[in-house]
Structure formats: C-alpha cells, structure tokens
C-alpha cells in the first residue's frame, strides 16, 4: 500500500512550469528520498503536498484518500530554515503549533513532556528561540514536526545545522518513527544521507521526474558491469570481451584497474581470466553511488 500517491501533477506559473506531469508513489513506512538540483521543483511539490499551494492539474492521494484540508493532522513538515517564532518561548511555541495541527492543549502538553525529556531539554521551556543555537532550534523544530504523530513526515534538509552527535540523535528518531508506522519523505542534496537512510528515491530535474524506484533497483539499473581489480603486475585482457576503464598505481607496486565486461561473460569468468594474467589482491564490483547517478542523470538531462 502506498502512503502517498502523486498522479500527473502539473503546476504552472506565469512564466514557467514548476512541475510537469509528475507522478510518484511513496510506499507505506518507507524512507523516501526526493532528490533534485536547486530549482527543479522539489519545494513546489512539497508545498502542494502540504496544501500550501494548489496544483493546476493532477491528484494527490494520501492513505488512499484524495488530499483535503482535514489531512493536515496526518502530515508533519519540517522546512529547511527554522520555521519558528524568534520571540516566542519554546514551550508556548510547541503548544501553539501542535494545536494548529489539531491537538488539544492537554494532549499537546503530555507529548511535549515526553519529547523534552527524551531530548533532555527540559530547562529550555522558558527560553526564547532567538536565545538558542541553530542546532537547538532545529531540535525544537523537529519536535514540533512530529509531535502530532503524523503518518507522513516531510523533512527538508533535516540535518543541516546539526553537529554529528545531534544528527545521529535525529537519525535514530527518524528510524524509530518509521518503525512505529510513519512514512518519511526527505528532500535533500546530501547523497550520504540518501545512501544511508533512504530505501526509495525519486529524482526530479527541470520540473520532471526522471527517475523513481527502490534504491537497490535504481542502483542495479545503473550498474555498468564494471569491476575494480587490485593487483600486482600489469595485465591486458582480450578486448573482445573486456574493456580497461582506468588504471592507477597504489603504494608498494600495487595497482588498481577497472575492467568492464562487454560481452555476456560474468564475474567468475573475469576472475578466471585474471588469474592467468596477474596476481589478484582484491576484487569487487563497482556499484554506482547515488551521487554518480544523480550527476549523470542531471547532466545528461541538460544535454537534451
């Protein structure tokens, strides 16, 4: 079952089209990476899902229902920059946002207590946001995003402004929320986050979706049948089946060569051929990183 389905959504502004016939399916309890360069249309899509703006065409289904104002309680949204009142105290701020999302005051209090104990920030209650550091404010922002236990959590660059300790804390909370049944959408440029956390991804470029799927499948799709061989002694293989794709010297006479299989041979056959040609010290498949796929697709897209 899909938590969120975006069907053929188009958003036009006077001078340009921000989203062009975009469709996405975000599976239940997935961590879904929404990727794309600046200005690709990610923010517009997030705003449409948050009902901040309306699409010109297309539909959005949440939990199988057509998106409508009463769904705001199902969604939690963390914007990239601190979306908090600077002059307002932490406690008042959390209660206010929780109530705007539809919680009662007493419910909000109970849940806020739970979170501030968990994050060990009880003594911040009466502090104003302007007196907190960026990372501290982000923590408050995170609490306010998930306080109403949304089914769908949308995080825009959630780790910017965090030191590694706090970034880990937030990452663990995200995984915990997923375990409890939430679906999480990340909008990010940070490929390490995507590699580490996401199980599904979509890539938006120039208002269009150019890639979507499970991370493993996407990576498999972009495998190039290239292997990295660490060896001693130069070798060359039959050019009918193999292609040398880069070579560099390592320390102590070791070398690294990338070999791409051109024909229908498999990795085992490559190893057999290598055994006769050189002294093998290491062998692994070269799996494209999300970063490489991203750059390849975005640059490729610009050539069209």
């Amino acid at each position, binding site marked *: 079952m899909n938590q969120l389905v975006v069907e053929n959504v188009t958003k036009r502004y*006077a001078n340009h089209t921000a989203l062009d016939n975009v469709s996405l399916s975000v599976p239940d309890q997935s961590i879904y990476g929404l990727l794309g360069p600046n200005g690709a249309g990610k923010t517009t899509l997030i*705003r449409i899902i*948050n*009902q*901040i*703006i*309306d699409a010109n065409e297309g539909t959005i289904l949440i939990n199988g229902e057509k998106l409508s*104002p009463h769904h*705001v309680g199902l*969604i939690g*949204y963390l*914007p*990239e*920059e*601190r*979306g*908090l*009142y*600077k*002059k*307002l105290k932490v406690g*008042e701020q959390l209660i*206010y*946002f929780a*109530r*705007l*999302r*539809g919680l009662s005051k007493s419910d909000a209090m109970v849940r806020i207590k739970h979170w501030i104990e968990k994050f060990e920030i009880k003594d911040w209650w009466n502090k104003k946001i302007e007196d907190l550091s960026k990372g501290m404010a982000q923590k408050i922002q995170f609490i*306010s995003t998930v306080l109403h236990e949304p089914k769908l959590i949308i995080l825009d660059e959630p780790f910017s402004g965090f030191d590694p300790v706090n970034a880990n804390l937030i990452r663990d909370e995200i995984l915990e929320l997923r375990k409890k049944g939430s679906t999480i959408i990340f909008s990010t440029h940070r490929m390490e986050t995507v590699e580490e956390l996401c199980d599904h991804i979509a890539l938006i470029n120039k208002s269009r979706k150019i890639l979507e799927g499970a991370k493993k499948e996407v990576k498999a799709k972009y495998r190039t049948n290239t292997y990295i061989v660490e060896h001693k002694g130069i070798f060359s293989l039959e050019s009918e089946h193999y292609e040398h794709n880069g070579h560099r010297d390592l320390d102590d006479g070791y070398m690294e060569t990338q070999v791409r299989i051109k024909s229908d041979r498999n990795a085992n056959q490559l190893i057999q051929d290598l055994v006769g040609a050189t002294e093998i010290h290491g062998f692994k498949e070269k799996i494209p990183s999300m970063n490489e796929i991203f750059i390849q697709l975005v640059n490729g897209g610009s050539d069209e």
Partner: protein
Amino acid sequence: MNKIFLIIQREFLNRVQKKSFLIATILLPLIFPTIIAIMVYVAKEQDKGAKSEVIHFVDESGLFNPDDIKRYELRRFNGNIEDAKTAFSSSDDFGLLHIPKINLSNPSGITLYTKVNPSPNDINDLESKIELQIREAKMIKFNIDQKILDSLKTNISIRSVSLSESGQEKSSDSKVLFGIGMIGGILIYIFIFVYGAQIMQGVIEEKTSKVVEVIVSSVRPFQLMLGKILGLASVGLLQFLIWIILITTVSSFVLGYLGFDMPQQEMMNQVAAQPEYNSDFMDVMQTVNEIPVFYIVSIFLFYFLGGYLLYGALFAAVGSAVDSPAEAQQFIFPITIPMLISYFALFTFILDNPHSTISIWLSIIPFTSPIAMMGRVGFGVPTIQLIASMVCLIGGFIFTTWVASRIYRIGILMHGSKVNYKVLFKWFMMKS
C-alpha cells in the same frame, strides 16, 4: 474557525505579554496630561517670574497715557526722539515707542524701535492699546460723556442651541464639539498607523523566518491573515478600554483633589440658581453634560475598528510582498495618502465647517471616513449620511481584505524577487 481563534489568541498574547504593551498602556494616558500640565505650569511661572521689560515712549501728541501691558513696563521719556534713541541704544531695555504729533482721524508714523524683532502678539497689544487711547481722545473731542462711554461696552457670548426635529433644545458649545472631533480623529489616525505598522512587521517576520510555511500547511493563508488582524484589533480595543478606565479614574481623582467632587448635575443646579453666573464655564458644563457619551463612544469604536480593518488588511498585504521593512516604504506611501488627506482636512475645514459638501463626502468615502466622520459626529450627522458612511466602510474593508488576501497568499511564499506594482497586480490576478 477554531484555528482562526487560536491565531487570534496567540497574536493577542504575544503583544499583551510584552513589557512594552504594559508601559505604553499605563504610562501613555499619564504622560500626555503630565507633559501638558508641566508645560502650562512652566509657562505660567515664567510669565509670573519674568522681570517685566521696559519700553520707553516719547509722546509728542500728548494723548498717550498708558498703563503697563502684560510683561512690558511703559516708561515715559521726557525729551526729543533723537535723545531718546541715543539713550535707548546704550541701555538694556526692550524698546522705544515713538508717537509723533498725529492727526486723530488718520494717525500715522507711530514707530517702535527694538533691538530684537518683537512678536506679532506684542505689536498687536501695543496697537490695540494705542487705538483705545485714540478712540477715547476722539470721544472726548466729540463731547461724549465717560458714563456713556462705559455703558457702550458690552460683553456678549453667543450660546448656541441645536434644535432637534422633535423640538428638543440642546445647548452646544462648539469648542467642546471641536475638541471631541479633534481627539477622536487624532486617536484613530494614530491607532491605524501604529497597529498597521505592527501587522506589517508581524507578517514580514513570519515570512522571513519561514514560520508562515509551517502555519499555512495547517491553516489557509486567509485565516492566518485575518487571525493576525483580528488579534491585533483585540489588543487595540483592550488598550483603548484600559485608557478610558485610567483616564476616568485619574481625572475623577484629580477633580476630587481639587474640590470639584460634586456630581455634575448638582453643580449645574447650583450654577443655575445664580442667574448672573451665566459664564462660558456654564456653557461648557452644559454641553459636556448633554453629550451623548454612549453614542459618541459607539461611533468612535465603529470607525476605529472599521478604519483599522480597512487599512490593516492593506498593511498585511504590503508586509507579505516584501522581505524587509525598508522595502515596504514604497508601498506604504500610497496607503498613507488618504489618511493624510483626511487628517489635514480634519484640521483645515471639517471641524470648522462640518456640514459642507466636501466634509460630507470625505466622511462617506471609506478610505477617509474614519477620521472625517469623527470630526463631524459631535456636531450631529443626519442618520442617512451616517448609515451610508457605515455601509461604505463595511464594504470598504471587505473589499480591501479581499484584495489583500489575494496578494498575501502569493506574497508570503515569494522570496528575493523584486516586487513592484505590476508584480502585485499579477499576484492579485493569479488563480488559486
């Protein structure tokens, strides 16, 4: 609806919990009377304590026999004018008045020599003094008796009574009505500016801190805008209420301290028992007593709220369109023009001539009516005009709120773009 109430509550608490609100609310009604009182006191003391300045005079006509006027001591100089000039220029005295031999029917050549320029008031005082003496000299010349002269002097003050359709007489002291109009108009003018600026600042703050994106994912932009405007309106009403209570309490305390603690009606009776005591004071008290306080206050509250809502929406729209208060200036200016027009109109002709055609129109057009109508209301406004004005004002703020909300919903999400009137119009026309 529930969420609008939440926003109103939040905006209300945000302002009311601030120290600056408390200070402004409690001190302002005390500060202004205090400043005025101090200024009056200082001026009086100065008048009292000031050493009177000396004006010498050389009277060649032999007519002049003056008393001292106000802060000047008039001292006769015996001798010719040239000697007087020499003596004067070496002294520290204020002036030298030269009255040559004059023709009573066409006096000319009277000159005042001074070291610093005299004020118009001083010149006026001297002129009327001399005029009076010339008048008396003429009277004597025409053989008119001093007794007749004295009996010619009469002091009158016109008591104005407005006759209502039902034939009821209401005495009205136009100075009091003037004061009501002026204070009401100024209060509305200041309130709209101060609170309008606060709305605008609040919107800019929400926009730049991106709070607005979090909030409009829970409520409609229109709800947020309206909640903000109404929240601040409630702060304004509270402040106004506190001021009324404070001023009433303080003034009754002060009056009690000065011994005027008797009820107004009793004082009126006492005054009425002494028919010759038909002074200005009596008129003022009578007018004050007959002012329909509830009526005036209700009208004030209506125009205060209506004007505030009308302009508040425009201020919110401006705030949504810009990224900083500095950028807002260009859009604020046109908004303030009708306010300034009505403010100046109030002082130049509405209060002097509340029933002229232009006064009537200014009090009906919604952009100027809050201030203009306050100027007229004390003098009595025909019901039909009042209704027309109120309907126009309600229509006006519904219209500006609608226009503003269309700009606001787009503006709050736009960052870093250069905004001009063309862009605003485009936002306004954009379909949601």
